[in-house]
């Protein structure tokens, strides 16, 4: 008993003995893990539009730390690197056009028949989020969070809070949330005064200082378990934005009331450069109120899950939109799955959406040719494939194609504009890799 005996491995002998005892080989492997207190969700995203337009490369990560009693802290970070060009709001012409860069320090040219694109749009954006989740009593949950983001010309600071309460043996959940954002804009070169002309290189006489924008969001929601295989949700959202809502880099072409062609500038272009034609900076209202109704259902049928959602949005800029999103998750062997995805989107144009400004008419109060405020349809079609790695972690990859095609209201087309394709349709490829561990 006093002699220290070595620790010999007896597993093999014991396994053999157990095998004889139980009369058969045990058909299982051992998989017993202590779950980590931390959960990580990471992804790499590529977004690319065709025709040299916007490209985005993004890395995202969320780390969640679980505590006793279902409390949790989650910290998120996103880094976006943006390159490429975006339509600047001017219309195509049959001649070369030149534009002063937003900074006022240079100019760029666009060929005949080309869609004017501004490629000053290179930026890196970093965003951080934090969220604390706290159960209150048996049936309530409180979430409090904050967010911060920063890019060259824009900083954002936000806070949000949400309360959710369960009823009917947790079959019904009612939630209410509030978010408030305070954003600061410091456009390159300074925000231009609305509806003033684009000036020559070096001339920043029509620029204003920093701008800001506040946004209040309220969301009220109900989630209901309908049956063992169906759960539905409905949310009403209200959003109020106040402040500088204009895009400081976008212009509209000032056109002749008969021909629809963009008016040439008065006087010659200076040596340093300047706009070849007359362009006016856009102008949007300084308030916007949106209402949305969102409903979603998740339905389990025969091992597969159908996710279908519909959102209706209407606002006081007279934009109405409908979004239908469908996903179908199809499990495959070995803990993997395939998930096709279809999304249909349609919106009507903003009240002040205008293809170009008619020189023979009084100047409108608000005007923008931003394609994102126009009348267009969007379709997304994609496929996602997910699997479990050897270490038991989840990986996924998805590839999607997003296409937008729009129309300019007939009443806005003047003269020669009818011969051209005026709406900058969009085709984008989305590729995303995800890894959770």
């Amino acid at each position, binding site marked *: 008993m006093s002699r220290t005996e070595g620790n010999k491995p007896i597993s093999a002998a014991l396994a053999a003995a157990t095998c004889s005892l139980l009369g058969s080989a045990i058909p299982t492997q051992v998989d017993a893990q202590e779950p980590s207190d931390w959960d990580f969700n990471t992804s790499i995203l590529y977004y690319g539009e065709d025709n040299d337009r916007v490209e985005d490369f993004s890395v995202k990560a969320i780390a969640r730390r679980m505590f006793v009693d279902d409390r949790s802290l989650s910290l998120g970070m996103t880094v976006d690197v943006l390159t490429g060009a975006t339509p600047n709001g001017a219309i195509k012409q049959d001649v070369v056009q030149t534009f002063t860069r937003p900074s006022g320090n240079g100019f760029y040219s666009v060929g005949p028949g080309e869609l004017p694109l501004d490629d000053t749009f290179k930026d890196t954006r970093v965003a951080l989020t934090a969220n604390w989740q706290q159960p209150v009593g048996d049936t309530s949950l409180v979430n409090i969070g904050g967010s911060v983001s920063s890019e060259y010309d824009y900083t954002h600071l936000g806070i949000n809070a949400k309360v959710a309460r369960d009823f009917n043996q947790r079959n019904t959940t009612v939630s209410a949330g509030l978010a408030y954002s305070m954003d600061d804009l410091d456009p390159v070169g300074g925000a231009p005064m609305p509806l003033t002309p684009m000036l020559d290189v070096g001339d920043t006489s029509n620029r204003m200082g920093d701008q800001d924008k506040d946004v209040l969001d309220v969301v009220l929601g109900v989630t*209901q378990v309908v049956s*063992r295989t169906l759960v539905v949700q409905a949310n009403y959202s209200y959003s109020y934005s106040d402040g500088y809502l204009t895009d400081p880099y976008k212009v509209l072409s000032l056109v002749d009331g008969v021909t629809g062609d963009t008016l040439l500038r008065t006087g010659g272009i200076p040596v340093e450069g300047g706009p070849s034609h007359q362009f006016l900076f856009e102008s949007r209202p300084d308030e916007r109120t949106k209402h949305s109704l969102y409903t979603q259902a998740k339905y389990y049928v025969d091992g597969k899950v159908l996710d279908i959602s519909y959102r209706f949005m209407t606002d006081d800029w007279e934009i109405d939109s409908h979004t239908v999103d469908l996903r179908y998750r199809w499990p495959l062997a070995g803990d993997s799955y395939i998930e096709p995805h279809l999304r249909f*989107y349609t919106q009507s144009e903003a009240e002040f959406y205008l293809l170009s400004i008619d020189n023979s008419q009084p100047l409108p109060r608000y005007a923008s040719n931003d394609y994102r405020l126009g009348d267009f349809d969007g379709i997304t079609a994609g496929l996602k494939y997910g699997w479990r790695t050897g270490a038991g972690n989840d990986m996924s990859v998805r590839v999607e194609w997003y296409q937008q095609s729009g129309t300019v209201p007939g009443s806005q087309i003047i003269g020669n504009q009818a011969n051209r394709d005026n709406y900058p349709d969009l085709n984008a490829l989305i590729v995303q890799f995800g890894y959770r561990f």
Partner: protein
Amino acid sequence: MTRTIGFLAAALLLCGGCSSMGVEPWDRDILAMEEMQLTTDELEAATDDHIYFSKEASSGGRGFGGGGCGCN
């Protein structure tokens, strides 16, 4: 605005009939599956929200995203 109220009323009516709907606690096996959660992949949802917020005039619906950006 009247359309909004109409939709809201429809949603509330849906809730009114809900008090007796549901399942017993021991029948929640399928509902507990990860793929049956309303948001299955938080990052993918955040990514999509951000892409469509940047390219369209509508945003959110499910909740609120993590923050603004200079894209719209």
